[in-house]
C-alpha cells in the first residue's frame, strides 16, 4: 500500500517535471546518460563488454562452442542470445527461469543482430551439415537503472566486434576473428505526456505507458523495432521516433563502436 502510493507520487513528479520541459536528472529530452563501454574484461569469454548507461550496468559475454547446424541451414553457424535479469540487479528481478521481460530483451537484441546480418553466419560453418560454431551472446544485467535494452544491444555488438574464435581450444585452424559486417545500435524512447524522451532512466520507464526501441544500422536502415507498454502510439509519433532512433544510433556508433 505505502509502496504503491509512493510509486504514484513519483510518477506524478516525473510527469510534471517533463511537462515543464525538464528531466529528473537534468538531461535534455534527446540526450543519453553518460555512456561507457569497456571491452574484453572477461578473459574467459571469447568476447565481452561492460556497458554503462548512467547507473545502468550490463555485462555481455560471447562464448563459442562447436555444435551441429540446424537441418534447414546446414552451412551456417548458430546464434543464440540469452538474457539473465539477475536478482542482484534490481529488487524487481526474481530468481527462477527467464520471465517475459527477459525473453523479450534477448529476442529483440537477437533480431537486431540477425536482421542487420551483422555476423556472417556462413563463415561459422566448419563442416557443412556436421559442425558449426555456436555463438552464444549472454547478457548479464548487473544494475538496472532503466533502459537495459540499449545497454544490452550495445554490449552485444561491442562484444562481437572483439570476439576471437577459439580455434586452438578445439584443435582447429582458421580465421580468429568474427566477420562483423554491420553495427546495429538500439535506441529506446518513451512517451510521457506528449513528450518523447530517449534513454529513459528507471523513474521515466515507470512513469511511461509506452516505449519503442528502434535498432538501426550504419547505412541508416532499420533492422529491428519493438513497441512495448500498455498504451499505444500514434502513427506520426512512431515515424518521429524512428527518425530520432536512426540519428541517435549514428552518434553512438561513431563514438563507441568507432574502432571497427
Amino acid at each position, binding site marked *: 500500500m505505502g509502496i*504503491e502510493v509512493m510509486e504514484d507520487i513519483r510518477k506524478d513528479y516525473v510527469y510534471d517535471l517533463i511537462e515543464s520541459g525538464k528531466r529528473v536528472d537534468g538531461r535534455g529530452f534527446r540526450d543519453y546518460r553518460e555512456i561507457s563501454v569497456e571491452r574484453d574484461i572477461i578473459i574467459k569469454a571469447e568476447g565481452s563488454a561492460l556497458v554503462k548507461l548512467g547507473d545502468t550496468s550490463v555485462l555481455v559475454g560471447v562464448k563459442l562452442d562447436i555444435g551441429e547446424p540446424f537441418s534447414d541451414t546446414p552451412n551456417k553457424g548458430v546464434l543464440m542470445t540469452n538474457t539473465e535479469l539477475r536478482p542482484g540487479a534490481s529488487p524487481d528481478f526474481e530468481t527462477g527461469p*527467464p520471465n*517475459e*521481460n527477459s*525473453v*523479450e530483451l*534477448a*529476442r529483440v537484441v537477437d*533480431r*537486431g543482430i*540477425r*536482421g*542487420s*546480418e551483422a555476423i556472417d553466419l556462413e563463415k561459422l560453418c566448419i563442416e557443412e551439415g556436421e559442425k558449426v560454431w555456436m555463438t552464444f551472446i549472454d547478457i548479464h544485467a548487473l544494475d538496472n537503472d532503466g533502459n537495459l535494452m540499449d545497454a544490452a544491444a550495445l554490449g552485444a555488438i561491442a562484444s562481437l566486434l572483439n570476439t576471437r574464435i577459439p580455434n586452438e581450444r578445439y584443435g582447429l585452424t582458421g580465421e580468429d576473428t568474427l566477420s562483423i559486417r554491420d553495427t546495429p545500435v538500439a535506441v529506446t524512447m518513451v512517451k510521457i505526456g506528449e513528450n518523447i524522451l530517449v534513454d529513459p532512466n528507471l523513474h521515466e520507464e515507470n512513469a511511461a505507458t509506452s516505449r*519503442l526501441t528502434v535498432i538501426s*544500422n550504419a547505412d*541508416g*536502415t*532499420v*533492422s*529491428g*523495432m*519493438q*513497441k*512495448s*507498454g*500498455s*498504451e*499505444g*502510439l*500514434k*502513427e506520426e509519433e*512512431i*515515424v518521429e521516433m*524512428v*527518425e530520432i532512433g*536512426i540519428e541517435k544510433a549514428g552518434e553512438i556508433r561513431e563514438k563507441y563502436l568507432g574502432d571497427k
Partner: protein
Amino acid sequence: MKEEGIELIKDGKRLDGRGFEELRPMKIEVGVLKRADGSCYFEMGNNKALAAVYGPREMHPRHLQNAKTAVVNYRYNMAPFSVDERKRPGPDRRSVEISKVSREAIEPVILKEYYPKTAIDIYVELLQSDAGTRTAGINAASVALADAGIPMRDLVSSVAVGKIEGEVVLDLNAAEDNQGEADMPLAMVTRTGTITMLQMDGRLTKDEFERGLKLATNACREIYELQRTALIEKYSGSIGGGEE
C-alpha cells in the same frame, strides 16, 4: 532471413495470385465455444486461430491481483500439429514473447478499471500456422473479448507487412516470410489510429518503413470492418434469435 529459393513475384503478382497490397482471404466465426465466456475462430489465409476468453473472474493467486484494475492474461499457443515439423508442446521463448506483445496490443482497449481484482484470461490457439499467426491471434482475441461482453473502447485489428524481392507487400504467407527481407507485424485501434503493437525484423529503409506503416494501417481498417460485421451478425442473430 533471406534464403535462396523460388521466385516470389511474377508479372506483378505474388505466388498465391495476390497483388502487393492485398490481404489473404479471411473468415470469422463468433461464439464457437460453449464453455468459454467469449470465443472467436479466425482464418487468415491458411492460419487457423481460435480465441477463448474467460472473465472477468476471480484472480488466482490473490497476491497477483490488482486493487485498481482487472489483470489481463494472454496465452498464445501453437498446436503441435500446426506446423510442418511437429512443435513440442508447452511454452517456448517465442510464444512467451508473442503472448506479451499480443497482450499489450489488446490491453489498451479493455476497460480494466471496471473490474478491479479480477482476471480477464485470453487463450489463443493456433491450430494451423502460415505466417502472421500473432496477427491472426490478435484479431481473434479482440472479437472474442467483445463476444464475452468485456467492455472495450474499440476493437483491435492486426496485420503484418513485409518486404519480398525488394517490394513492400501486405500480409506475408509462410513461403514469403521464409524468403523475405523484412517482416513487420502491427496492431491498431482503428477509430483512434493508435498503434498498440509494432515489431520489426529484417532490414528496411526509412522510406520502406513508412510505406509499410501506411499499408498496414489501411489494411487494419479493412480487417476492422470484417470484425465489426461478424459481431453485428452475431448480435442481430441473437436479438432475433427466437424467430430464426
